C-alpha cells in the first residue's frame, strides 16, 4: 500500500506485501472453502440487518392529536377509550397520565359511570388542571349543567327534560356512531386481509430465499464433498507412494548394512592375515638379530681366548710341570665342605628331585630327547629324573665327591670345570643345556663366557634353562642368598634376561618357583598384599631361553 520510505531498517514494505499477497493467493487456491460461502453470508447478513424495510405499516384507527394553542370540546371527544384519556392528560395537564389515574378513569369510562365530559371536567377543574389553565371551548357550559343535575328532584326532572329534548340529536348521534363503527370494522377487515396477503407474499418470498439458500448450500456441500474426496484420494496415493519409498529405502538400507558387514569381515580377515604374517616376519627378524648377536659373542670370545692364549702361552710354557697337579688338588680342597653344605642349603635329594620335575615338560614340549648337558649336576637329582623319563643326558660337576656319588648311581657324569668341558664340545651338538643354582657362583666375566660357550655348542633352536635364587624375595636377596659362602652375587630376573638376550638367546619363559606357602600375612589391603609378595614370594626362578634357529 505504502511505499517504503527507507527508514534504514532494511524493510521493503512493498516487496514484503507482494510476497504476502502471493502466499495468500496460494493459500486461497489450496483452501477447501472458496468464495461461494461469502456471497451466502453477505446475503444472510443483509437479510438479518434489514427486516424493517419490508415491515407492514401499522393500522391506526384514531388519528394523531393535533397540537394547538386552544382546543374545542369536540377535538377531544373524537377520541375513545385509552387514547382519549392519554390525549386528555396531554392537553389539559400537559403530561402523560400516571398509572393510578389512568386505571381509575379507564375503569369508570368502560363501565359507563363517567361520560367523557365528566372525565374532561374533573381533569380540567382539578387543582393541577386549574394551575395549567388550558382553555377548552364548550366545557364550561356542560360543567354548569352538571352542577344543576346534582340538585335533588329538580336535577332529575331537568336531566329527563334535556334527554327528551335531545332525543332527535341522540338518535342522529347513534346512527353516526353506528355507521362510523361499521366503517372502522370494514377498515380493520381490509387491513387484516391486506396483512394476510402481505404475510403470505413475504412467506412465499422467504420460502423462495430459503430454497435458494438451501440449494446453494447443497451445491456447495456437493462441491466440498467432491473436493474432499479428491483430496483424500490424492492423500491416499501420496501415502502409498510414501510407503513404497519407505520400503525401498529400508531394502537399500539393509543391503547397504549387509555390504558394510561383509566389507568389515573381509577387512578383519585381511588384517588378521597381515598381522600373522607381520608377527612371523618380526619373529624371524628377532631370531636373526639374536643369531647375529650370538655370532658376534662367539667371535668375541674366540678372539678373547686367542688373545689370552697369546698372553699366557709364555708363563704356561715356563711353568714347572709339577706345579699344575698341585693347583688342581687345591681346586678340590673345598669339595667335601660343599658336599656337606648341599643337604643343608639345597634340601634333601628327594625334595630336589620333586622340584626339578617342573622342567621335564619344557624339554618334552620342545621335542628334545637327547644331547642334554646338565652343568653343575650336584647329587644328580635332575639326571635321575631325565633318566626315568628316558631322556639321554650327561652331567658335569667340578666336585669330585658329588661326581663319585653320581657315578655310584650309574649316571653319565664327568668331573670337569664347565668352561673347560664346554670347550671340548663341538659346535651345534647339544639339544639342551641346563644349569640349576650355577650362575650365581660365577663372576660376571665367566658367566658371559659360559653363555657364549653354551650358545656355540647348542644346536639351532636348542634350549638353555638357568635356575637361580630370586632376589625379588627380600629374605632371599638380603640373607638366604648369602647362606652359601660360595655364592658371588644375586642376579635379578631382568639382569638375567638382559644377559641372555645380549648374548644372542631368545628368552621364552620365566618360571617363578618355590613360594613360601604357609606363613603369609593376612591380606587386608594393597600394602599387606605387597608385603606378602616381597617376604613370602617365589624364592627361586628359572629362565628358559632358545638359541635362534633361523639362518
Amino acid at each position, binding site marked *: 500500500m505504502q511505499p517504503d520510505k527507507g527508514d534504514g*531498517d532494511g524493510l521493503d514494505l512493498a516487496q514484503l506485501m507482494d510476497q504476502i499477497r502471493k502466499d495468500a493467493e496460494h493459500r486461497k487456491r489450496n483452501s477447501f472453502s472458496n468464495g461461494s460461502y461469502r456471497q451466502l453470508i453477505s446475503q444472510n447478513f443483509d437479510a*438479518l440487518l434489514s427486516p424493517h424495510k419490508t415491515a407492514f405499516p401499522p393500522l391506526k384507527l384514531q388519528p394523531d392529536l393535533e397540537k394547538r394553542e386552544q382546543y374545542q370540546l369536540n377535538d377531544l371527544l373524537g377520541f375513545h377509550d385509552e387514547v382519549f384519556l392519554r390525549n386528555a392528560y396531554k392537553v389539559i395537564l400537559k403530561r402523560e397520565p400516571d398509572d393510578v389515574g389512568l386505571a381509575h378513569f379507564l375503569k369508570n369510562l368502560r363501565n359507563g359511570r363517567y361520560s367523557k365530559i365528566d372525565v374532561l371536567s374533573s381533569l380540567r377543574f382539578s387543582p393541577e388542571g386549574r394551575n395549567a389553565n388550558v382553555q377548552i371551548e364548550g366545557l364550561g357550559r356542560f360543567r354548569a349543567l352538571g352542577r344543576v343535575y346534582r340538585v335533588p328532584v329538580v336535577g332529575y326532572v331537568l336531566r329527563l327534560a334535556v334527554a327528551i329534548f335531545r332525543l332527535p340529536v341522540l338518535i342522529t348521534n347513534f346512527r353516526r356512531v353506528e355507521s362510523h363503527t361499521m366503517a372502522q370494522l370494514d377498515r380493520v377487515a381490509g387491513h387484516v386481509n391486506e396483512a394476510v396477503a402481505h404475510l403470505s407474499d413475504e412467506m412465499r418470498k422467504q420460502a423462495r430465499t430459503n430454497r435458494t439458500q438451501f440449494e446453494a448450500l447443497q451445491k456447495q456441500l456437493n462441491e466440498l464433498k467432491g473436493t474432499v474426496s479428491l483430496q483424500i484420494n490424492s492423500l491416499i496415493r501420496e501415502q502409498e507412494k510414501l510407503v513404497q519409498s519407505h520400503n525401498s529405502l529400508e531394502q537399500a538400507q539393509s543391503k547397504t548394512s549387509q555390504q558394510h558387514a561383509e566389507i568389515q569381515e573381509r577387512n578383519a580377515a585381511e588384517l588378521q592375515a597381515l598381522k600373522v604374517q607381520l608377527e612371523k616376519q618380526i619373529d624371524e627378524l628377532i631370531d636373526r638379530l639374536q643369531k647375529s648377536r650370538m655370532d658376534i659373542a662367539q667371535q668375541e670370545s674366540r678372539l678373547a681366548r686367542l688373545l689370552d692364549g697369546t698372553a699366557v702361552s709364555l708363563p704356561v710354557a715356563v711353568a714347572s710341570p709339577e706345579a699344575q697337579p698341585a693347583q688342581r688338588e687345591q681346586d678340590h680342597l673345598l669339595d667335601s665342605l660343599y658336599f656337606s653344605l648341599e643337604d643343608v642349603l639345597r634340601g634333601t635329594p628327594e625334595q630336589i628331585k620333586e622340584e626339578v620335575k617342573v622342567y621335564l615338560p619344557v624339554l618334552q614340549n620342545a621335542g628334545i630327547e637327547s644331547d642334554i648337558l646338565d652343568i653343575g649336576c650336584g647329587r644328580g637329582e635332575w639326571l635321575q629324573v631325565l633318566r626315568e623319563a628316558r631322556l639321554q643326558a650327561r652331567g658335569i660337576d667340578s666336585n669330585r665327591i658329588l661326581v663319585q656319588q653320581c657315578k655310584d648311581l650309574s649316571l653319565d657324569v664327568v668331573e670337569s670345570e664347565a668352561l673347560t668341558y664346554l670347550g671340548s664340545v663341538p659346535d651345534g651338538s647339544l639339544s639342551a643345556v641346563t644349569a640349576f643354582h650355577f650362575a650365581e657362583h660365577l663372576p660376571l666375566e665367566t658367566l658371559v663366557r659360559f653363555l657364549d660357550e653354551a650358545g656355540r655348542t647348542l644346536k639351532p633352536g636348542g634350549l638353555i634353562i638357568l635356575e637361580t635364587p630370586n632376589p625379588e624375595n627380600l629374605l632371599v636377596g638380603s640373607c638366604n642368598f648369602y647362606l652359601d659362602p660360595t655364592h658371588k652375587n644375586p642376579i635379578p630376573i631382568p639382569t638375567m634376561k638382559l644377559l641372555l638376550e645380549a648374548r644372542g638367546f631368545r628368552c621364552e619363559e620365566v618360571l617363578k618357583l618355590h613360594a613360601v606357602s604357609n606363613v603369609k600375612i593376612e591380606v587386608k589391603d594393597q600394602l599387606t598384599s605387597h608385603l606378602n609378595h616381597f617376604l613370602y614370594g617365589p624364592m627361586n626362578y628359572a629362565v628358559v631361553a632358545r638359541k635362534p634357529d633361523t639362518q
Partner: protein
Amino acid sequence: MTRIAILTPTLTPADAVSNDVLTMRRVLCERGHEVRIFAENSNLAGEQIAEPSAALPYLKTSNDVLIYHHSIGCAAGVETLQAASCRKIVKYHNVTPPEFFEGISEQHQRLCESGRSQLKDIVAAQPDLFLAASAFNKSDLIAAGSEEHKTFVVAPFNQADGLRAGEADLDLFDTYHDDSVNLLTVGGVRPNKGHADLIEAFATYYYNFNGQARLFIVGAANNAFDRYAATLRQLIDWWSIDSRIVFTGEVSNESLKSYYLLADALLMTSEHEGFCVPLVEAMAMKVPIVAYASTAIPETAQDTALIWDERDPYLMAQSIDFLQTNEAARMALVYRGSRRYEENFSNQVIEKQFLELLDSFNQLGSGQYRER
C-alpha cells in the same frame, strides 16, 4: 487569560472524542485559561458538566473562545455556534455515514444524517479556525466550504502515553498468557467497525494457519446496536469459533494495557474512521498492525502497518501468519510504529502543534483572521 468554552455532544469514558476534549481542557487550563466544558449528555464520574444552553451566557465578551467538537448531529451545538458572538473554533472528528445504522438504530441513523447535514451550517456560522483530526476529515470540511487557510490538521489528544506509563491488570494478563496467538481489535461494537470482516478474517486465520488463535474484541457494547451484536453472534456461530472470540465490553485502562501486552497483532477492519486512535495506541504499545485501507486508516498508520486495499480475509490471515513467522520484519514494523507515535502522536507533540495554532489565532484576533 481567556475564557474558553468547549462544547461537545457527548462525554463518556473510553471515547476518542471525550479524551480529546478532556486533554484539551487540561492543556488550556495549564496555560492559565478559564475553561469550562458543555455537553448534551455526560456520564463521566465526578464531573459536573453544564448543558449547552449555559455556554452562551458563559461567553460574555467577543474575546472569549468557543471550541465546538463536531462528531454527530447536535442541534444545540450548532445553534450555539451560530448564536455566539465570540471567537469560534471547530474541531471536526468526522461523522459516521448514516447508512451504517440503517435497520439497526433509527436514532443513530437520524443523528448521523443531521450530523452530516449540519456541516454546512457549521461552515456557514463562519468559525475563525477549523481543526480536522486528519487530512481525510479536512477534505470533508473543504468540501463543505471551509477555507483552506483556516483549516488545519491536528491529531486528537489520546491516552496512549497513559497506557505506556500506566499499570496493567496482571490477573487478566495471566489468564490469557498462554501458547495461543492473541489477536486484538479495539473500538466500540458499532456497525461501522466492520466486525463481520474481522470475524471472517479471524476465522480464515484460525482454520488455515493456527487452531490456537484467539481474538479479543475490546470495546463497549451499546444496547442501541443489539441487532448488530446479535448478527455478529450468528456469524460467529456459523463459523463455530465462539470459544476463540472474547467480547470484553468496556474495559478499564489497566485491562486495556493488558490486552495490548497480550496482543500479537492489532487487526483493524473498520469501514469508517475519522482518525482511528487504536492505531496510535498499538504503535505506542509496540503491537504490529494489520488493517484494511479505509477512510483515515492509511493516513494514520502510513508505513508502520500492513494495510490492504482489498477486503480479502486471506490477505489478513496471511499477514498475521507472516508477522508470527518473520521476527525481523515484525520488529522493524513495530519500531517504525513506535517512532511514528513519538514523532507525531504523543500528547506532547500534539499539544505543541495545537498551542502553536492557537497562538497564531490569538495574535491575529478573530476579525483579522477572517480577513486574511
